[in-house]
């Protein structure tokens, strides 16, 4: 706590919240100027996790970049890979097989569930309800096991690659998902009883951190944060990718604009993600290829490689040099668990991206935080931070 030399001479006090405060979800520092308990001015200080990922991407080959994208927003890693792959596929004009798209949708939605579960647990904990956290993380473990089954990794899967998925899922994958999906509604019901119906939680969140519809658009908020302000905008519906237009789901929208509305949006979204997962699971029962047959994306058949020298050379070139992407620029955005995740990719026709710019949803959402908390009580600051669901890895990159 930083105090002025003579606290009586000035009624304003400057407090540093974070960077190690648990409610800041990582390493966010807020410089709060307080008048008693009221926040007069809030200045976020970010960059503690900045590792120059956009710069590193310029040094990696096109296909290697997915190992970096999934490490940005570590709670929504599948979605991050998906956005990057879609952008490059758009630039290359590659079509992704049906089954790969269904796998992408299933895993991205499961990832949205884990992300929202972490948000639910930590948001409730910030406000003082400890128990929810343990329930959320127990349930999240089960989804991480599913990811491990599909890709071998629990958090940084890098399972989606340009052209489809890295390999097909093992045979025990579908039963594992089916088991989880069967039990999830019961869990969600318990979760709603535990926190949603809690009077203290409602009092702490209703009417706190209000953002009007116009402000939400002008500030560039996205995802559940803008849908809690009454804006019906979901990129899965507005600009469908990976066949989202063929799934039956609705977009929850609440008008309140406060922490409570954003809470309800995410709780309903978990239900919708569950519905999408069920539909995707049904479609995955049909077998099929999971990688595009584009000659530069699919590795050649091993038997052919042993018989023909040109096939061998082709394999060697893909594995050593990679492939090139046509000259051009593209902007592709997806609906990540936090909002509009955009990739602006510039290619100069070489085997490495010239520039990858990431429009991180948490970054833009956090920029509106001062407007949300100024004039509110200091205890509400943690509630508001929880409600915009920031991930510092996504903000700092």
């Amino acid at each position, binding site marked *: 706590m930083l105090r002025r030399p003579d606290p009586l001479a000035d009624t304003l006090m400057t407090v540093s919240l974070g960077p190690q405060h648990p409610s800041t979800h990582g390493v966010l520092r807020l410089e709060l100027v307080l008048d008693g308990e009221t926040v007069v001015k809030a200045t976020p200080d970010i*960059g503690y996790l900045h590792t120059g990922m956009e710069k590193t991407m310029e040094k990696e080959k096109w296909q290697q970049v997915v190992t970096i994208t999934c490490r940005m927003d570590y709670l929504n890693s599948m979605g991050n890979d998906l956005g990057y792959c879609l952008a490059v596929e758009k630039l290359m004009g590659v079509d992704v097989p049906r089954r790969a798209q269904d796998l992408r949708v299933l895993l991205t939605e499961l990832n949205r569930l884990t992300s929202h579960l972490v948000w639910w647990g930590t948001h409730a904990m910030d406000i003082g309800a400890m128990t929810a956290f343990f329930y959320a993380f127990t349930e999240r473990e089960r989804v991480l096991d599913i990811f491990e089954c599909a890709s071998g990794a629990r958090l940084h899967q890098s399972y989606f690659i340009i052209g489809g998925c890295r390999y097909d899922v093992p045979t025990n994958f579908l039963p594992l998902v089916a088991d989880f999906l069967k039990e999830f509604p019961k869990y969600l019901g318990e979760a709603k009883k535990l926190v949603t119906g809690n009077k203290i939680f409602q009092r702490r969140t209703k009417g706190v951190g209000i953002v009007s519809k116009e402000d939400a658009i002008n500030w560039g908020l996205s995802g559940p944060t803008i849908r809690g302000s009454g804006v019906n905008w979901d990129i899965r519906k507005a*600009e469908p990718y990976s066949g989202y237009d063929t799934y039956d789901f609705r977009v929850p929208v609440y008008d309140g604009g406060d922490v409570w509305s954003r809470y309800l949006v995410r709780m309903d979204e978990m239900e919708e993600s569950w519905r999408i997962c069920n539909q995707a699971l049904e479609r995955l029962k049909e077998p099929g290829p999971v990688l595009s047959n584009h000659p530069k994306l699919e590795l050649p058949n091993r038997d052919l490689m042993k018989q023909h020298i040109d096939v061998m050379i082709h394999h060697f070139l893909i594995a050593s040099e990679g492939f090139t992407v046509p000259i051009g620029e593209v*902007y592709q955005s997806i609906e990540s668990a936090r909002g509009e995740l955009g990739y602006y990719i510039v290619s100069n026709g070489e085997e490495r991206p010239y520039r990858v710019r990431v429009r991180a949803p948490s970054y833009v959402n956090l920029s509106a935080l001062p407007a949300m908390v100024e004039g509110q009580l200091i205890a509400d600051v943690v509630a508001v931070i929880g409600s915009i669901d920031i991930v510092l890895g996504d903000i700092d990159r």
Partner: protein
Amino acid sequence: MSETLEKTPGVKPLPRYADVSLIRNKFAETVQEIIEAVSEVTIVAKREGLVELMTFLRDEPSLCFDYLSDIGGVDLGEFASPRFAVAYQLYSLEYNHRLRIKVFLEEDDAHLPTMWSIWKASNWLEREVYDMFGVTFDGHPDLRRILMPADYEGYPLRKDFPIKGY
């Protein structure tokens, strides 16, 4: 497999991009070029008159670009002239279409007017471009480094910035 599924091709449908033919004449001084590629529309604009162009894009009822998605800088290389490009990704919640405005800048004259008065989302996005490329934004309310430390020297995303330590 149902009929709707059969009809859905690969990575399509692509997002809709805006019809910007009406600004070609109205902003003949500012708009240098309108490019259509990969089913995206890019307007290459000059710095002079950029604020008026952006304000028009937001307020014109048939375009209504009320949402600023992103501002991204690109360094075209140490010896390139112009050296920098700054790309604004606009989106319209009303019409669900997108547009990219691109401005090229010389290295010794790398400054742009701020979009703060049009979209508040530009606040941190412009700060990041300043932090990473050294492009300054005239009239920005709080132009400080954002990701790098305040006393940091150099601009990390410039192509002449080393990727390894000295």
